[in-house]
Protein backbone atom coordinates (compact mmCIF):
# COMPACT_ATOMS: atom_id res chain seq x y z
CA UNK A 1 0.00 0.00 0.00
CA UNK A 2 2.90 2.24 0.76
CA UNK A 3 5.73 3.42 -1.47
CA UNK A 4 4.74 1.06 -4.21
CA UNK A 5 7.61 0.64 -6.62
CA UNK A 6 7.44 -0.76 -10.13
CA UNK A 7 10.26 -2.06 -12.32
CA UNK A 8 11.26 -5.52 -11.32
CA UNK A 9 13.69 -7.70 -13.19
CA UNK A 10 14.83 -11.29 -13.36
CA UNK A 11 18.39 -11.49 -12.17
CA UNK A 12 20.63 -14.44 -11.65
CA UNK A 13 22.43 -13.69 -8.43
CA UNK A 14 25.56 -15.48 -7.26
CA UNK A 15 25.72 -16.89 -3.77
CA UNK A 16 28.69 -15.38 -1.98
CA UNK A 17 28.04 -16.79 1.46
CA UNK A 18 25.72 -19.25 3.13
CA UNK A 19 25.63 -20.27 6.75
CA UNK A 20 23.38 -21.99 9.21
CA UNK A 21 22.15 -19.69 11.98
CA UNK A 22 20.43 -22.36 14.02
CA UNK A 23 18.61 -25.65 13.41
CA UNK A 24 16.50 -24.79 10.38
CA UNK A 25 17.52 -21.19 9.76
CA UNK A 26 19.92 -20.29 6.97
CA UNK A 27 21.48 -16.97 6.10
CA UNK A 28 22.51 -16.57 2.48
CA UNK A 29 24.26 -13.63 0.88
CA UNK A 30 23.65 -13.12 -2.80
CA UNK A 31 25.42 -10.79 -5.20
CA UNK A 32 22.71 -9.35 -7.43
CA UNK A 33 23.53 -5.76 -8.09
CA UNK A 34 20.43 -4.68 -9.91
CA UNK A 35 17.98 -6.04 -7.40
CA UNK A 36 20.12 -5.09 -4.42
CA UNK A 37 20.55 -1.51 -5.56
CA UNK A 38 16.85 -0.97 -6.16
CA UNK A 39 15.44 -2.67 -3.07
CA UNK A 40 13.67 -0.99 -0.22
CA UNK A 41 12.91 -2.62 3.13
CA UNK A 42 9.69 -4.61 3.08
CA UNK A 43 10.08 -5.69 -0.53
CA UNK A 44 10.70 -9.26 -1.51
CA UNK A 45 12.26 -11.41 -4.19
CA UNK A 46 10.53 -14.33 -5.89
CA UNK A 47 13.06 -17.11 -5.99
CA UNK A 48 13.36 -20.05 -8.35
CA UNK A 49 14.92 -22.62 -6.07
CA UNK A 50 15.73 -25.15 -8.79
CA UNK A 51 16.22 -25.53 -12.51
CA UNK A 52 13.25 -27.13 -14.19
CA UNK A 53 9.86 -27.24 -12.52
CA UNK A 54 10.31 -29.20 -9.32
CA UNK A 55 9.04 -27.49 -7.29
CA UNK A 56 6.77 -25.73 -9.74
CA UNK A 57 6.39 -22.36 -8.06
CA UNK A 58 8.89 -19.75 -6.99
CA UNK A 59 9.32 -18.99 -3.31
CA UNK A 60 8.79 -15.45 -2.00
CA UNK A 61 11.51 -14.30 0.40
CA UNK A 62 11.90 -10.94 2.06
CA UNK A 63 14.90 -8.91 1.12
CA UNK A 64 17.19 -8.80 4.14
CA UNK A 65 20.02 -6.35 4.75
CA UNK A 66 21.50 -4.95 1.55
CA UNK A 67 25.15 -4.12 1.29
CA UNK A 68 26.09 -2.49 -2.00
CA UNK A 69 25.60 -5.16 -4.65
CA UNK A 70 24.60 -7.94 -2.27
CA UNK A 71 21.52 -8.75 -0.32
CA UNK A 72 20.86 -11.24 2.44
CA UNK A 73 18.14 -13.87 2.33
CA UNK A 74 17.46 -15.45 5.67
CA UNK A 75 15.08 -18.35 5.60
CA UNK A 76 13.53 -21.12 7.56
CA UNK A 77 13.62 -24.57 5.99
CA UNK A 78 9.92 -25.25 5.95
CA UNK A 79 9.35 -27.71 3.13
CA UNK A 80 10.93 -28.97 -0.05
CA UNK A 81 11.64 -25.60 -1.65
CA UNK A 82 13.60 -24.01 1.15
CA UNK A 83 15.32 -27.37 1.69
CA UNK A 84 16.78 -27.11 -1.80
CA UNK A 85 17.89 -23.55 -1.12
CA UNK A 86 19.66 -24.58 2.06
CA UNK A 87 21.75 -27.08 0.14
CA UNK A 88 23.15 -24.51 -2.28
CA UNK A 89 26.81 -23.65 -2.22
CA UNK A 90 28.83 -20.49 -2.59
CA UNK A 91 29.30 -19.70 -6.27
CA UNK A 92 25.98 -21.19 -7.39
CA UNK A 93 23.48 -19.09 -9.27
CA UNK A 94 20.10 -18.18 -7.91
CA UNK A 95 17.34 -16.91 -10.16
CA UNK A 96 15.30 -14.14 -8.55
CA UNK A 97 12.59 -11.75 -9.62
CA UNK A 98 12.69 -8.52 -7.71
CA UNK A 99 12.45 -6.19 -6.07
CA UNK A 100 8.73 -6.84 -5.70
CA UNK A 101 5.90 -5.36 -3.69
CA UNK A 102 5.58 -2.44 -1.37
CA UNK A 103 8.11 -1.12 1.13
CA UNK A 104 7.64 0.04 4.71
CA UNK A 105 6.94 3.74 4.92
CA UNK A 106 9.74 5.40 6.81
CA UNK A 107 8.97 6.76 10.28
CA UNK A 108 8.28 10.46 10.42
CA UNK A 109 10.51 12.71 12.43
CA UNK A 110 8.42 12.62 15.59
CA UNK A 111 7.61 8.92 15.50
CA UNK A 112 9.38 6.32 17.58
CA UNK A 113 9.86 3.18 15.49
CA UNK A 114 9.43 -0.19 17.10
CA UNK A 115 10.38 -3.30 15.16
CA UNK A 116 8.51 -6.35 16.29
CA UNK A 117 9.56 -9.61 14.72
CA UNK A 118 8.22 -13.10 15.22
CA UNK A 119 10.81 -15.74 14.38
CA UNK A 120 11.88 -15.60 10.77
CA UNK A 121 9.74 -12.46 10.37
CA UNK A 122 12.82 -10.55 11.44
CA UNK A 123 14.24 -10.46 7.91
CA UNK A 124 12.64 -7.31 6.45
CA UNK A 125 13.07 -5.55 9.79
CA UNK A 126 16.81 -6.09 9.72
CA UNK A 127 16.91 -4.29 6.40
CA UNK A 128 14.62 -1.54 7.72
CA UNK A 129 16.82 -1.19 10.77
CA UNK A 130 19.80 -0.57 8.49
CA UNK A 131 17.92 2.10 6.60
CA UNK A 132 17.28 4.33 9.58
CA UNK A 133 20.10 6.73 10.25
CA UNK A 134 21.99 6.17 13.47
CA UNK A 135 20.53 9.18 15.17
CA UNK A 136 17.05 7.75 15.06
CA UNK A 137 16.15 5.98 18.28
CA UNK A 138 14.33 2.70 17.93
CA UNK A 139 13.29 -0.42 19.77
CA UNK A 140 13.86 -3.84 18.21
CA UNK A 141 11.93 -6.81 19.61
CA UNK A 142 12.15 -10.43 18.54
CA UNK A 143 9.90 -13.25 19.70
CA UNK A 144 11.29 -16.78 19.59
CA UNK A 145 9.97 -20.14 20.61
CA UNK A 146 13.23 -20.83 22.34
CA UNK A 147 16.93 -20.02 22.09
CA UNK A 148 17.62 -22.96 19.82
CA UNK A 149 15.20 -21.60 17.23
CA UNK A 150 16.97 -18.28 16.95
CA UNK A 151 16.70 -16.57 13.59
CA UNK A 152 19.75 -14.31 13.97
CA UNK A 153 23.21 -14.82 15.37
CA UNK A 154 24.07 -13.65 18.88
CA UNK A 155 26.44 -11.18 17.27
CA UNK A 156 23.64 -9.58 15.33
CA UNK A 157 21.39 -9.57 18.40
CA UNK A 158 24.03 -7.61 20.28
CA UNK A 159 25.06 -5.32 17.47
CA UNK A 160 21.48 -4.26 16.91
CA UNK A 161 20.49 -4.30 20.58
CA UNK A 162 17.58 -6.62 19.93
CA UNK A 163 15.37 -7.48 22.87
CA UNK A 164 14.34 -11.10 22.73
CA UNK A 165 11.42 -12.96 24.21
CA UNK A 166 11.11 -16.72 24.25
CA UNK A 167 8.15 -18.90 25.10
CA UNK A 168 10.26 -21.09 27.37
CA UNK A 169 12.45 -18.35 28.81
CA UNK A 170 15.61 -19.95 27.41
CA UNK A 171 16.64 -16.55 26.10
CA UNK A 172 15.57 -13.05 27.13
CA UNK A 173 12.11 -12.28 28.38
CA UNK A 174 9.94 -15.30 29.17
CA UNK A 175 6.66 -14.92 27.36
CA UNK A 176 5.45 -13.87 23.97
CA UNK A 177 6.61 -10.85 22.07
CA UNK A 178 3.36 -8.97 22.56
CA UNK A 179 3.87 -9.21 26.30
CA UNK A 180 7.41 -7.96 25.79
CA UNK A 181 6.08 -5.11 23.68
CA UNK A 182 3.53 -4.19 26.34
CA UNK A 183 6.20 -4.21 29.00
CA UNK A 184 8.54 -2.05 26.95
CA UNK A 185 5.86 0.42 25.98
CA UNK A 186 4.67 0.76 29.52
CA UNK A 187 8.07 0.88 31.23
CA UNK A 188 9.64 3.29 28.78
CA UNK A 189 6.64 5.50 28.22
CA UNK A 190 7.49 5.78 24.53
CA UNK A 191 5.83 8.70 22.76
CA UNK A 192 4.34 8.40 19.30
CA UNK A 193 5.33 4.81 18.73
CA UNK A 194 4.92 3.29 15.30
CA UNK A 195 5.18 -0.43 14.91
CA UNK A 196 6.74 -2.36 12.06
CA UNK A 197 6.06 -6.03 12.28
CA UNK A 198 6.44 -9.32 10.50
CA UNK A 199 5.85 -12.81 11.81
CA UNK A 200 3.31 -15.61 12.22
CA UNK A 201 -0.31 -14.81 11.33
CA UNK A 202 -1.53 -15.26 14.86
CA UNK A 203 1.03 -12.85 16.24
CA UNK A 204 0.08 -10.24 13.66
CA UNK A 205 -3.60 -10.65 14.40
CA UNK A 206 -2.95 -10.10 18.11
CA UNK A 207 -0.72 -7.16 17.37
CA UNK A 208 -3.41 -5.57 15.25
CA UNK A 209 -5.90 -5.92 18.08
CA UNK A 210 -3.41 -4.53 20.56
CA UNK A 211 -2.55 -1.55 18.37
CA UNK A 212 -6.17 -0.77 17.69
CA UNK A 213 -6.86 -0.75 21.39
CA UNK A 214 -3.94 1.54 22.09
CA UNK A 215 -4.33 3.49 18.86
CA UNK A 216 -0.81 2.85 17.73
CA UNK A 217 -0.15 2.82 13.98
CA UNK A 218 1.21 -0.48 12.79
CA UNK A 219 2.62 -1.77 9.55
CA UNK A 220 2.66 -5.48 9.00
CA UNK A 221 4.37 -7.55 6.34
CA UNK A 222 2.19 -10.51 5.32
CA UNK A 223 2.87 -13.97 4.00
CA UNK A 224 0.49 -15.85 1.72
CA UNK A 225 1.16 -18.44 -0.97
CA UNK A 226 1.95 -16.76 -4.27
CA UNK A 227 1.82 -17.63 -7.93
CA UNK A 228 3.22 -14.95 -10.21
CA UNK A 229 4.45 -12.45 -7.62
CA UNK A 230 3.68 -9.58 -9.99
CA UNK A 231 -0.05 -8.96 -9.63
CA UNK A 232 -1.19 -11.02 -12.60
CA UNK A 233 -2.77 -14.12 -11.11
CA UNK A 234 -4.63 -12.95 -7.98
CA UNK A 235 -3.34 -15.87 -5.94
CA UNK A 236 -2.12 -13.82 -3.03
CA UNK A 237 -5.34 -12.35 -1.72
CA UNK A 238 -5.74 -11.02 1.79
CA UNK A 239 -9.18 -9.82 2.88
CA UNK A 240 -9.69 -6.12 3.37
CA UNK A 241 -10.63 -5.06 6.88
CA UNK A 242 -13.83 -3.45 5.62
CA UNK A 243 -14.99 -6.75 4.12
CA UNK A 244 -15.07 -5.32 0.62
CA UNK A 245 -12.96 -7.84 -1.25
CA UNK A 246 -9.26 -8.47 -1.15
CA UNK A 247 -5.86 -6.87 -1.52
CA UNK A 248 -3.07 -8.62 -3.40
CA UNK A 249 -0.10 -9.22 -1.15
CA UNK A 250 2.43 -9.25 -4.01
CA UNK A 251 1.29 -5.92 -5.36
CA UNK A 252 -0.61 -4.00 -2.69
CA UNK A 253 1.68 -5.52 -0.04
CA UNK A 254 3.47 -7.37 1.40
CA UNK A 255 3.53 -4.37 3.75
CA UNK A 256 0.11 -3.18 4.83
CA UNK A 257 -1.22 -0.67 7.28
CA UNK A 258 -2.57 -3.19 9.81
CA UNK A 259 -5.86 -1.36 10.07
CA UNK A 260 -6.67 -2.05 6.41
CA UNK A 261 -6.40 -5.84 6.44
CA UNK A 262 -8.36 -8.62 8.08
CA UNK A 263 -5.86 -10.90 9.80
CA UNK A 264 -8.24 -13.38 11.41
CA UNK A 265 -7.25 -16.29 9.23
CA UNK A 266 -4.76 -17.87 11.55
CA UNK A 267 -1.87 -19.87 10.21
CA UNK A 268 -1.57 -21.22 6.69
CA UNK A 269 -2.88 -24.79 6.23
Amino acid at each position, binding site marked *: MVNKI*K*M*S*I*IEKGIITDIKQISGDIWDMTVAASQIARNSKPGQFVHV*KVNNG*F*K*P*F*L*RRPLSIGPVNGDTLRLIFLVKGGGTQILAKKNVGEEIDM*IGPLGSAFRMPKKDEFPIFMAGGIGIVPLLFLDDCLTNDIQRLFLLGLRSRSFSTVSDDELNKRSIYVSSDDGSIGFKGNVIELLTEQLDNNKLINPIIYSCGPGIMLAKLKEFCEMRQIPAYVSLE*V*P*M*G*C*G*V*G*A*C*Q*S*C*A*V*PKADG*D*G*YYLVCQDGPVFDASLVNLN*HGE*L*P
Partner: protein
Amino acid sequence: MIVNANVRMGDIELRTPLLTGSGTFGYGSEFEDLTDYSALGGIVTKSLSFEPRAGNPPPRICETSSGGIINSIGLANVGIEEFLGSKVNELPLDKTEVFLSVVGDSVEDFTKVVERLEDVERIAGYELNVSCPNVKRGGLSLGGDREAVTAIVREVRALTKRFISVKLTPHYTLIAPVAQAAVDAGADALTLINTLVGMEINAETRKPLLGNITGGYSGPPLKPVALAKVWQAAQVVDVPIWASGGIVNGIDAIEFLLTGATALQVGSVLFADPKAPTRILNEMIQYCERHNVDSFTDLIGGLRT
Protein backbone atom coordinates in the same frame (compact mmCIF):
# COMPACT_ATOMS: atom_id res chain seq x y z
CA MET B 1 17.61 -22.47 -41.81
CA ILE B 2 14.82 -19.99 -41.19
CA VAL B 3 11.76 -21.42 -39.48
CA ASN B 4 8.51 -19.72 -40.23
CA ALA B 5 6.89 -19.22 -36.83
CA ASN B 6 3.61 -17.60 -37.75
CA VAL B 7 0.27 -19.35 -37.94
CA ARG B 8 -2.96 -18.30 -39.61
CA MET B 9 -6.45 -18.65 -38.25
CA GLY B 10 -9.00 -17.27 -40.67
CA ASP B 11 -8.26 -13.58 -41.07
CA ILE B 12 -5.92 -13.48 -38.14
CA GLU B 13 -2.23 -14.11 -38.44
CA LEU B 14 -0.31 -14.70 -35.23
CA ARG B 15 3.41 -13.98 -35.44
CA THR B 16 4.00 -17.03 -33.23
CA PRO B 17 1.56 -19.71 -32.09
CA LEU B 18 2.17 -18.82 -28.45
CA LEU B 19 -0.61 -17.17 -26.47
CA THR B 20 -0.86 -16.62 -22.74
CA GLY B 21 -3.51 -18.59 -20.87
CA SER B 22 -6.36 -16.61 -19.38
CA GLY B 23 -5.81 -15.73 -15.73
CA THR B 24 -2.07 -16.27 -15.80
CA PHE B 25 -1.02 -13.02 -17.47
CA GLY B 26 -3.48 -10.58 -15.94
CA TYR B 27 -4.51 -7.87 -18.36
CA GLY B 28 -1.21 -8.06 -20.15
CA SER B 29 0.88 -5.41 -18.46
CA GLU B 30 1.78 -7.01 -15.14
CA PHE B 31 4.66 -8.95 -16.67
CA GLU B 32 5.86 -6.16 -18.92
CA ASP B 33 9.23 -5.73 -17.23
CA LEU B 34 9.91 -9.44 -17.47
CA THR B 35 8.43 -10.99 -20.60
CA ASP B 36 9.47 -10.35 -24.17
CA TYR B 37 6.22 -9.85 -26.05
CA SER B 38 7.82 -10.53 -29.41
CA ALA B 39 7.74 -14.26 -28.65
CA LEU B 40 3.99 -14.09 -28.18
CA GLY B 41 1.42 -14.31 -30.93
CA GLY B 42 -1.10 -12.84 -28.56
CA ILE B 43 -2.43 -12.72 -25.06
CA VAL B 44 -5.69 -13.86 -23.52
CA THR B 45 -6.74 -11.71 -20.60
CA LYS B 46 -8.17 -12.75 -17.23
CA SER B 47 -11.79 -13.82 -17.63
CA LEU B 48 -14.07 -10.85 -17.31
CA SER B 49 -17.60 -11.06 -15.96
CA PHE B 50 -20.43 -8.57 -15.96
CA GLU B 51 -20.41 -7.95 -12.23
CA PRO B 52 -17.12 -7.62 -10.38
CA ARG B 53 -16.11 -10.76 -8.48
CA ALA B 54 -14.07 -10.61 -5.31
CA GLY B 55 -12.94 -14.19 -5.63
CA ASN B 56 -12.40 -16.94 -3.10
CA PRO B 57 -10.96 -16.81 0.42
CA PRO B 58 -7.21 -17.42 0.71
CA PRO B 59 -5.10 -19.43 0.31
CA ARG B 60 -5.83 -19.43 -3.39
CA ILE B 61 -2.89 -21.39 -4.77
CA CYS B 62 -0.99 -24.49 -3.78
CA GLU B 63 1.36 -27.00 -5.27
CA THR B 64 0.47 -30.66 -5.72
CA SER B 65 2.77 -33.54 -4.91
CA SER B 66 2.42 -34.47 -8.56
CA GLY B 67 4.30 -31.40 -9.76
CA GLY B 68 1.35 -29.22 -10.71
CA ILE B 69 -0.54 -26.44 -8.99
CA ILE B 70 -4.13 -25.81 -7.98
CA ASN B 71 -5.69 -22.37 -7.92
CA SER B 72 -8.97 -21.23 -6.50
CA ILE B 73 -8.95 -17.61 -7.58
CA GLY B 74 -12.68 -17.87 -8.05
CA LEU B 75 -12.63 -15.83 -11.26
CA ALA B 76 -11.82 -12.71 -9.28
CA ASN B 77 -12.05 -9.78 -11.69
CA VAL B 78 -13.03 -6.14 -11.70
CA GLY B 79 -16.20 -6.56 -13.76
CA ILE B 80 -16.99 -4.94 -17.07
CA GLU B 81 -17.56 -1.43 -15.69
CA GLU B 82 -14.21 -1.02 -14.03
CA PHE B 83 -12.50 -2.87 -16.84
CA LEU B 84 -13.69 -0.27 -19.29
CA GLY B 85 -12.79 2.48 -16.88
CA SER B 86 -9.22 1.48 -16.13
CA LYS B 87 -7.83 -1.94 -17.04
CA VAL B 88 -8.61 -1.44 -20.69
CA ASN B 89 -5.79 1.11 -20.82
CA GLU B 90 -3.28 -1.47 -19.65
CA LEU B 91 -3.90 -3.81 -22.60
CA PRO B 92 -0.67 -4.23 -24.58
CA LEU B 93 -2.42 -3.45 -27.85
CA ASP B 94 0.73 -2.11 -29.47
CA LYS B 95 2.76 -5.14 -28.59
CA THR B 96 0.67 -8.13 -29.50
CA GLU B 97 -2.79 -9.42 -30.41
CA VAL B 98 -5.24 -9.20 -27.53
CA PHE B 99 -8.03 -11.69 -26.97
CA LEU B 100 -10.44 -10.88 -24.17
CA SER B 101 -11.69 -13.77 -22.07
CA VAL B 102 -15.32 -13.54 -21.00
CA VAL B 103 -17.11 -15.58 -18.36
CA GLY B 104 -20.60 -15.72 -16.95
CA ASP B 105 -23.15 -17.79 -15.09
CA SER B 106 -25.82 -17.24 -17.67
CA VAL B 107 -26.13 -16.65 -21.36
CA GLU B 108 -27.09 -13.06 -20.62
CA ASP B 109 -23.90 -12.52 -18.61
CA PHE B 110 -21.87 -13.34 -21.70
CA THR B 111 -23.85 -11.19 -24.08
CA LYS B 112 -23.91 -8.21 -21.75
CA VAL B 113 -20.14 -8.26 -21.45
CA VAL B 114 -19.42 -8.79 -25.14
CA GLU B 115 -21.85 -6.03 -26.11
CA ARG B 116 -19.83 -3.56 -24.07
CA LEU B 117 -16.49 -4.88 -25.28
CA GLU B 118 -17.46 -4.37 -28.89
CA ASP B 119 -16.71 -0.68 -28.39
CA VAL B 120 -13.12 -1.35 -27.41
CA GLU B 121 -11.00 -0.95 -30.51
CA ARG B 122 -8.19 -3.12 -31.84
CA ILE B 123 -9.28 -6.25 -29.98
CA ALA B 124 -8.44 -9.39 -31.96
CA GLY B 125 -11.24 -11.46 -30.52
CA TYR B 126 -12.81 -13.18 -27.56
CA GLU B 127 -12.29 -16.38 -25.66
CA LEU B 128 -15.52 -17.56 -24.08
CA ASN B 129 -14.85 -19.38 -20.84
CA VAL B 130 -17.88 -21.67 -20.81
CA SER B 131 -16.16 -24.09 -18.49
CA CYS B 132 -18.39 -23.52 -15.49
CA PRO B 133 -21.22 -26.01 -15.22
CA ASN B 134 -24.78 -24.90 -14.50
CA VAL B 135 -25.04 -22.08 -16.95
CA LYS B 136 -28.49 -20.49 -17.03
CA ARG B 137 -30.56 -18.67 -19.60
CA GLY B 138 -33.10 -16.18 -18.37
CA GLY B 139 -32.61 -17.66 -14.89
CA LEU B 140 -33.33 -21.23 -15.95
CA SER B 141 -30.63 -23.86 -15.84
CA LEU B 142 -29.76 -25.12 -19.29
CA GLY B 143 -30.21 -28.85 -19.78
CA GLY B 144 -26.94 -30.44 -20.87
CA ASP B 145 -23.45 -29.41 -21.78
CA ARG B 146 -24.23 -29.02 -25.47
CA GLU B 147 -27.28 -26.90 -24.86
CA ALA B 148 -25.42 -24.45 -22.65
CA VAL B 149 -22.48 -24.12 -25.02
CA THR B 150 -24.73 -23.73 -28.02
CA ALA B 151 -26.80 -21.01 -26.39
CA ILE B 152 -23.80 -18.97 -25.27
CA VAL B 153 -21.89 -19.21 -28.51
CA ARG B 154 -24.86 -18.59 -30.76
CA GLU B 155 -25.89 -15.45 -28.92
CA VAL B 156 -22.41 -14.04 -28.70
CA ARG B 157 -21.87 -14.86 -32.37
CA ALA B 158 -24.90 -12.76 -33.22
CA LEU B 159 -23.30 -9.77 -31.52
CA THR B 160 -19.85 -9.72 -33.00
CA LYS B 161 -17.83 -10.26 -36.13
CA ARG B 162 -14.69 -10.71 -34.06
CA PHE B 163 -12.84 -13.98 -33.71
CA ILE B 164 -14.38 -16.24 -31.05
CA SER B 165 -12.65 -19.15 -29.37
CA VAL B 166 -14.66 -21.27 -26.95
CA LYS B 167 -12.79 -22.70 -23.98
CA LEU B 168 -14.00 -26.08 -22.80
CA THR B 169 -13.40 -28.06 -19.63
CA PRO B 170 -12.01 -31.61 -19.63
CA HIS B 171 -14.92 -32.65 -17.44
CA TYR B 172 -17.29 -33.55 -20.25
CA THR B 173 -18.11 -37.22 -20.55
CA LEU B 174 -17.38 -36.81 -24.25
CA ILE B 175 -15.66 -33.76 -25.71
CA ALA B 176 -16.51 -34.37 -29.35
CA PRO B 177 -20.23 -33.50 -29.25
CA VAL B 178 -19.61 -30.38 -27.20
CA ALA B 179 -16.80 -29.30 -29.52
CA GLN B 180 -19.06 -29.87 -32.50
CA ALA B 181 -21.87 -27.92 -30.84
CA ALA B 182 -19.58 -24.94 -30.26
CA VAL B 183 -18.47 -24.92 -33.89
CA ASP B 184 -22.00 -25.35 -35.18
CA ALA B 185 -23.03 -22.37 -33.09
CA GLY B 186 -20.38 -20.24 -34.74
CA ALA B 187 -17.09 -20.63 -32.86
CA ASP B 188 -14.00 -19.75 -34.91
CA ALA B 189 -11.74 -21.80 -32.66
CA LEU B 190 -11.78 -24.00 -29.58
CA THR B 191 -9.53 -23.65 -26.55
CA LEU B 192 -8.78 -26.99 -24.94
CA ILE B 193 -8.61 -27.37 -22.00
CA ASN B 194 -9.44 -25.44 -18.91
CA THR B 195 -8.19 -26.79 -15.58
CA LEU B 196 -9.29 -30.06 -13.99
CA VAL B 197 -11.04 -29.80 -10.66
CA GLY B 198 -8.48 -30.76 -8.04
CA MET B 199 -7.75 -30.64 -4.35
CA GLU B 200 -4.83 -31.14 -1.98
CA ILE B 201 -4.78 -31.43 1.77
CA ASN B 202 -2.17 -31.34 4.48
CA ALA B 203 -2.59 -34.62 6.33
CA GLU B 204 -0.61 -33.33 9.31
CA THR B 205 -2.91 -30.37 9.99
CA ARG B 206 -5.91 -32.10 8.36
CA LYS B 207 -6.67 -28.90 6.48
CA PRO B 208 -7.27 -28.39 2.77
CA LEU B 209 -4.50 -26.33 1.17
CA LEU B 210 -7.01 -23.96 -0.41
CA GLY B 211 -9.52 -21.72 1.30
CA ASN B 212 -12.12 -22.87 -1.20
CA ILE B 213 -11.13 -26.55 -0.64
CA THR B 214 -11.18 -27.44 -4.36
CA GLY B 215 -9.72 -25.51 -7.27
CA GLY B 216 -8.39 -25.71 -10.80
CA TYR B 217 -5.51 -28.11 -11.35
CA SER B 218 -2.95 -27.01 -13.93
CA GLY B 219 0.67 -27.44 -14.95
CA PRO B 220 2.53 -30.53 -16.22
CA PRO B 221 0.09 -33.16 -14.88
CA LEU B 222 -2.58 -31.66 -17.13
CA LYS B 223 -0.70 -32.22 -20.36
CA PRO B 224 -1.75 -35.82 -21.11
CA VAL B 225 -5.39 -34.88 -20.55
CA ALA B 226 -5.10 -31.80 -22.77
CA LEU B 227 -3.37 -33.78 -25.53
CA ALA B 228 -6.19 -36.31 -25.50
CA LYS B 229 -8.88 -33.65 -25.68
CA VAL B 230 -7.11 -31.75 -28.46
CA TRP B 231 -6.77 -35.00 -30.38
CA GLN B 232 -10.37 -36.01 -29.86
CA ALA B 233 -11.70 -32.61 -30.86
CA ALA B 234 -9.38 -32.38 -33.87
CA GLN B 235 -10.95 -35.57 -35.20
CA VAL B 236 -14.37 -33.94 -35.41
CA VAL B 237 -13.99 -30.21 -36.01
CA ASP B 238 -12.20 -28.19 -38.69
CA VAL B 239 -11.64 -24.95 -36.79
CA PRO B 240 -8.26 -24.16 -35.28
CA ILE B 241 -7.63 -25.45 -31.78
CA TRP B 242 -5.86 -23.49 -29.10
CA ALA B 243 -4.14 -25.90 -26.76
CA SER B 244 -3.89 -25.19 -23.04
CA GLY B 245 -2.58 -27.48 -20.37
CA GLY B 246 0.84 -28.19 -19.01
CA ILE B 247 3.03 -26.63 -21.67
CA VAL B 248 6.38 -25.85 -20.07
CA ASN B 249 8.85 -26.37 -22.90
CA GLY B 250 9.19 -26.42 -26.66
CA ILE B 251 8.69 -30.15 -26.99
CA ASP B 252 5.38 -29.92 -25.14
CA ALA B 253 4.40 -27.19 -27.58
CA ILE B 254 5.43 -29.26 -30.61
CA GLU B 255 3.44 -32.21 -29.26
CA PHE B 256 0.30 -30.09 -29.26
CA LEU B 257 0.93 -28.91 -32.81
CA LEU B 258 1.37 -32.51 -33.95
CA THR B 259 -1.79 -33.50 -32.12
CA GLY B 260 -3.75 -30.88 -34.03
CA ALA B 261 -3.46 -27.53 -32.25
CA THR B 262 -2.79 -24.31 -34.14
CA ALA B 263 -2.06 -22.06 -31.20
CA LEU B 264 -0.54 -22.88 -27.85
CA GLN B 265 -1.28 -21.25 -24.54
CA VAL B 266 1.35 -20.93 -21.88
CA GLY B 267 -0.24 -20.56 -18.48
CA SER B 268 1.11 -21.69 -15.13
CA VAL B 269 4.65 -21.91 -16.49
CA LEU B 270 4.77 -18.11 -16.52
CA PHE B 271 4.81 -18.06 -12.72
CA ALA B 272 8.01 -20.06 -12.64
CA ASP B 273 9.52 -18.56 -15.76
CA PRO B 274 8.17 -15.24 -17.03
CA LYS B 275 10.53 -15.59 -19.97
CA ALA B 276 8.94 -18.91 -20.95
CA PRO B 277 7.52 -17.62 -24.26
CA THR B 278 10.99 -16.76 -25.58
CA ARG B 279 12.50 -20.00 -24.32
CA ILE B 280 9.70 -22.16 -25.65
CA LEU B 281 9.78 -20.46 -29.03
CA ASN B 282 13.51 -21.07 -29.30
CA GLU B 283 13.12 -24.72 -28.32
CA MET B 284 10.41 -25.11 -30.96
CA ILE B 285 12.66 -23.59 -33.59
CA GLN B 286 15.48 -25.93 -32.57
CA TYR B 287 13.14 -28.89 -32.98
CA CYS B 288 12.23 -27.69 -36.46
CA GLU B 289 15.86 -27.27 -37.41
CA ARG B 290 16.65 -30.76 -36.17
CA HIS B 291 13.77 -32.19 -38.17
CA ASN B 292 14.16 -30.00 -41.21
CA VAL B 293 10.73 -28.45 -40.84
CA ASP B 294 10.55 -24.93 -42.18
CA SER B 295 7.23 -23.82 -40.80
CA PHE B 296 5.31 -24.51 -37.62
CA THR B 297 2.21 -24.75 -39.74
CA ASP B 298 3.60 -27.89 -41.36
CA LEU B 299 3.53 -29.64 -38.01
CA ILE B 300 -0.13 -29.05 -37.24
CA GLY B 301 -1.93 -32.38 -37.06
CA GLY B 302 1.19 -34.22 -38.21
CA LEU B 303 0.85 -37.11 -35.78
CA ARG B 304 1.70 -40.43 -37.44
CA THR B 305 -1.02 -42.86 -36.47
